[in-house]
Every structure is written in structure tokens, then in C-alpha cells.
């Protein structure tokens, strides 16, 4: 057999193999079908509670527990009732204010500190950074009482300040996260900027920050979620219901329309939906960033 023929033979074999590969890719294997089915079943399990919750918020009082997905007599009354029973709009406003301030404050301060640790090589850097990492290990319960006493002595109890102002000083977790991103930037970039006469602050705000936008978005989203969903600090600091955040308000409603007397599940259910909905919207807005951020968090180190 001539060399040409041989080559043609192998070429043909190659295309046959490719065709088989393509066919295999088009038809999902048995394994994939099984995996997808199992995942679909589990998805129902994971999503059903929320679908159920939203559906229950449209049911009249007596039907909350009837486990129908589509209410027998759908009503919008619960939402009107909640609005009348509780200053929901005020609570939502408080929560938005606190979460925005908390997220912006922690992003600005943490990125500054992270940059300080990432770019500069000063004596004592490693020891200080070890302190940052170490402070992540400290349980919140240890500092909770003295921090309360600080805000108390500043007359800030029963205001929204303690819920966000601490974020002006950075947070260990985000410092760690952002530092990782800053370390990934090439040093030559900053050397070049320095040659062009850029100062320390310009390098940080004009070069480092814009290049780390994804990490900054992750920080904003994470802190927004953490502050929005927090219950413990609002329980500690807020007294007057006019200052409540939505989760604190939901807890108050549960106490009033649940444990405290006659159960009004429809009110509690509806308030739960109102508490959760903004988080669901936030997730769909920042989905990609959430996933990337979490994946980065768990990587080794």
C-alpha cells in the first residue's frame, strides 16, 4: 500500500471517530438522563417551600395550611393588611438605608486596607495580616457586649448607626478576598504609573480599583445580603418599632400575631415574602458575581 493510501485510510478512520463522537454528544447517555432526573426532583424539593410560601400569602386566613399551590380563593388582602398592621414601608426604607450604607462603607474601607496589604512591602506586614486572618476566627459573641457598650456610651442605641458604621473600618473577610484580587494585578502596571508621576492614591483609585471591579461587586453584594438578613444586631440595638429593619419587624410580627396571642399566619407568611423578595431579586441581578465570589472564597488558602 502506498503512503498516500495509508494516509487516506487514517484520515477516514479519523472522520469516522469524529462522527461517532459527535453522535455521542448529541444523544445524552443513560447516566446523564438519570442525573438530570434526580436533579430535577431535588430542585422541586428545594424550590417548593418558597413557591408554597408565596402561594400562601395570597390565601385567606383559614386556607393558609391547605397546601394547595393555587389558592382556592386568591386574595390580595393580606398584603393590604400587613401594610396597615405594620409600618412596612418605613421598615423597608430603614433596611435599604442601612444595607446600602453598610455595603458601600465596607467596600471602600476594605478595598483600601486590602490594597495596603497587597501592594506595599513594609516591615511588620505579615504579622499584621496574620492578625486580620486571626480576627476572622473570633466568635461574634466575644465582642458583642463591649461593642454594644461602645454604641451605648455614644448614645447610638435605638438608632440605625450601629448596624452599619462599624463597616467604615473594613472587615477581615473582605480584606482577605480583595487582597487576593489585588495580588493578581501585574506590578509593572503600577511601576509604569509611578514613572508617569502617579501618586499612591491615584494608583489605587485610577488603576487598582477599576481593574478589581468584579471583586468589588462581590463585596457589595455579599455585605448587602448579610446586612439585609441580619436579625441579631437589630434585636440588640433597635427598640422603637419605627427604627426596625424588615427582619426585625418580621420577628415582632411573629411575636404579636403568633406567640403573643391568636395566630394570624396569613400576616406572618405575607411579611416573610416581603422580607425575602428583595433578596431573590438581588440574587438574579448579581447571580454570576455571587457564584464567582463563593467559588473564590472556598479555594484553598
Amino acid at each position: 500500500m502506498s503512503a498516500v493510501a495509508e494516509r487516506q485510510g487514517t484520515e477516514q478512520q479519523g472522520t469516522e471517530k469524529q462522527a461517532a463522537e459527535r453522535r455521542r454528544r448529541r444523544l445524552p447517555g443513560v447516566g446523564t438522563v438519570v442525573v438530570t432526573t434526580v436533579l430535577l426532583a431535588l430542585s422541586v424539593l428545594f424550590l417548593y417551600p418558597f413557591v408554597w410560601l408565596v402561594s400562601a400569602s395570597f390565601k385567606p386566613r383559614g386556607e393558609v395550611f391547605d397546601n394547595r399551590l393555587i389558592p382556592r380563593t386568591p386574595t390580595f388582602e393580606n398584603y393590604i393588611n400587613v401594610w396597615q398592621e405594620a409600618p412596612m414601608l418605613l421598615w423597608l426604607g430603614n433596611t435599604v438605608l442601612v444595607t446600602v450604607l453598610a455595603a458601600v462603607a465596607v467596600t471602600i474601607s476594605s478595598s483600601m486596607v486590602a490594597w495596603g496589604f497587597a501592594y506595599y512591602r513594609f516591615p511588620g506586614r505579615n504579622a499584621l495580616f496574620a492578625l486580620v486572618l486571626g480576627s476572622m476566627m473570633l466568635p461574634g459573641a466575644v465582642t458583642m457586649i463591649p461593642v454594644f457598650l461602645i454604641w451605648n456610651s455614644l448614645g447610638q442605641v435605638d438608632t440605625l448607626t450601629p448596624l452599619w458604621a462599624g463597616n467604615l473600618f473594613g472587615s477581615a473577610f473582605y480584606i482577605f478576598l480583595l487582597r487576593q484580587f489585588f495580588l493578581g494585578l501585574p506590578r509593572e502596571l503600577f511601576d509604569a504609573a509611578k514613572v508617569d508621576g502617579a501618586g499612591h492614591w491615584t494608583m489605587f483609585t485610577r488603576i487598582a480599583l477599576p481593574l478589581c471591579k468584579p471583586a468589588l461587586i462581590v463585596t457589595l453584594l455579599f455585605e448587602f445580603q448579610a446586612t439585609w438578613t441580619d436579625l441579631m444586631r437589630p434585636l440588640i440595638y433597635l427598640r422603637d418599632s419605627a427604627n426596625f429593619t424588615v427582619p426585625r419587624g418580621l420577628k415582632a410580627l411573629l411575636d404579636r400575631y403568633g406567640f403573643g396571642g391568636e395566630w394570624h399566619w396569613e400576616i406572618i407568611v405575607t411579611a416573610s415574602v416581603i422580607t425575602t423578595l428583595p433578596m431573590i431579586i438581588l440574587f438574579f441581578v448579581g447571580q454570576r458575581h455571587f457564584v464567582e465570589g463563593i467559588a473564590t472564597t472556598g479555594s484553598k488558602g
Partner: protein
Amino acid sequence: MASQTQDPALTRLADPTVADTDRSRRRRQQHYRWRELRPALLFLSPWLVGFTVFTAWPVLYSGYLSLTDYDVLTDAQWIGLDNYERMLEDPKVRLSLWNTVVYTVIQVPAYVAVSLGLALLLNRAKRASGFFRTVFFLPNMTPPVATGVLLLLLFNGQNGLVNTVLGWVGIEGPNWTTDPDWIKPGLVMMSLLSVGGSVIILLAALRNVPQELHDAARVDGAGSWRRTWHVTVPMISGALFFVFIVNTIAALQSFTEAYTAFFGVGNTTYSNDAALFYVIHLFRQAFESLNMGYASAMAWVLFVVIMVITAIQVTVSRRFVFYEGDQR
């Protein structure tokens, strides 16, 4: 991504077994620049102030408070170790510690196993994995207060959804929210709804397992299960350990879901002793009974317990956790 941006200092922090030779240390020290100290301190200043005011001082002050009797309204009275002695005899402390340990021992393995199972499934789902990742992460966004409310509704003994479903297959469900034996299992199951974050972490680790290892194992005749157990799981043991340790620390500090569902103003109908977690007891001592000194002592005991458990986990993990970097 993070492994590329990792700097040597951090690797050494995370893993003390990496040799820190004298020469590399000297080189690093030569690299230090005094003239960079000033601008660096300017950037670090928010944290330096914050750490001093909101971490270092509170830690010291909390240590001092734990040796006093303090109710905010009157001055702190020095009582030495009395608070710690009182803890030994406080039945509620013993109960809450027991509840917390039992919950942690059930919750953490269940949580890690479910996360791993879902991550393995998602890793095989190919094209649809993005969609499923979204679905499993979504419940993670639920505020814990709402999770507490959902617990009361779904696990309601009379007409909750869980018991209704159990009824279809002829099982009479327990009174999840009132029977002390079933409160913790209910809380554990509710917590499983939020495995999404861990699933994403494990999935990211799974994506980094080199395909060649699988192919090699396949050539050696290893089936799907054996490949999973002897190749995949050891390769992601670092991420698995991370999820395990973070969850243990979180479980030991459980508060919001249980507090929402079982404690609050006017709650007299529930026998909530089974849900009295350590941090709940601490919180109530501090902010409902204003026993700030006693609560501070409780906080310190929690701190020590967490440190000891974490240290044990790290020591034990040395034998099981495999880091790629160790080889180099």
C-alpha cells in the same frame, strides 16, 4: 484563580508545613522597604482604628467583664472567677451546651454529605448545571428569620406540609415543633435548604480535578464509584475540609432560625428547651436579663470550645487532606 494569585506568605500561613528556609526569609526581609511604611499605614488606617476599637479593646474588655457582675445600669463589681463557677452549676448552660453539641454533630455531617452529593451530581449534569446551580443556591438567599417562619409552617405537627406528605405514604409525622425529641431534626432539615453556598465551593473544586487522573484510573479498571471515592474525593479534600470546618464553627454559633421559631415575646406554648442553643442562652443573659458579666464569661467559654474543636479538626485533617501544593 486564587491559587495563582496566592503569595508565599499566605501559603505559609495556611500551611505551616511548607518549609520556610532561612534564605527565603532573608530575601523577603531585604524586600521590606521602610519608605513604603508611611503610605501603607495610610491605606491600613481604617482597619488599624477599627481593629483597635472594635476587636482588640472589646476582646480585652470582655475578658475583664467576665470577671465582674455588670448590668449596664450600675458599675461593674469585681467577682473574680464566680461567673465561671456559676456556669458549672447552671443547668441552662449545661442544657444549651448539650443542645448545641447534639445539633452540630447531626447537622455538620448531614450538611457536608448533602453538599458533596449535590456537587457530584451537578458536576455530571454538563449543560444544565448552570440552571441547577441557580436553583440550589436560591434558598441560600432567604433571610434566616424567614427560614425560622418556614420551619414553623412546614414542620407544623397538625397540618404542616411535611407531615401531609408523610401521611401520603402512611407515616404519621411527629410534632416537629413541639416535641423536644424532634425539634433538632427539624432544624437540621431546615438548614439543609441552604447548602447552595457549599455546593458551589465543592463544584469549583471538582472542576479543577484533572481529567487525566480519571482517565488513568479508568485504564486501571476502576468503575465510576471507585473513581469517585479514590480519585475525586481525595482531590477535593481541601475544599471539603474547608466546608466542614466553616460549618462546624457556624453550627456551634447557631442562633437566628431557632431563636425566631422558638423564642420571643409571649412564647409560652412551646417547650423550647430543646432549641435552647448556647448563643441563644448567652444572648438572653446579656440583653434580656442584662447579666453582661455572666454572658461575657459564657462568650469566652464558647471561644475556647471553638478553638479546641478547630484545632482538633486541623490536626486530624492532616492525615486526610491532600493539597496539590504540598508536592512541589
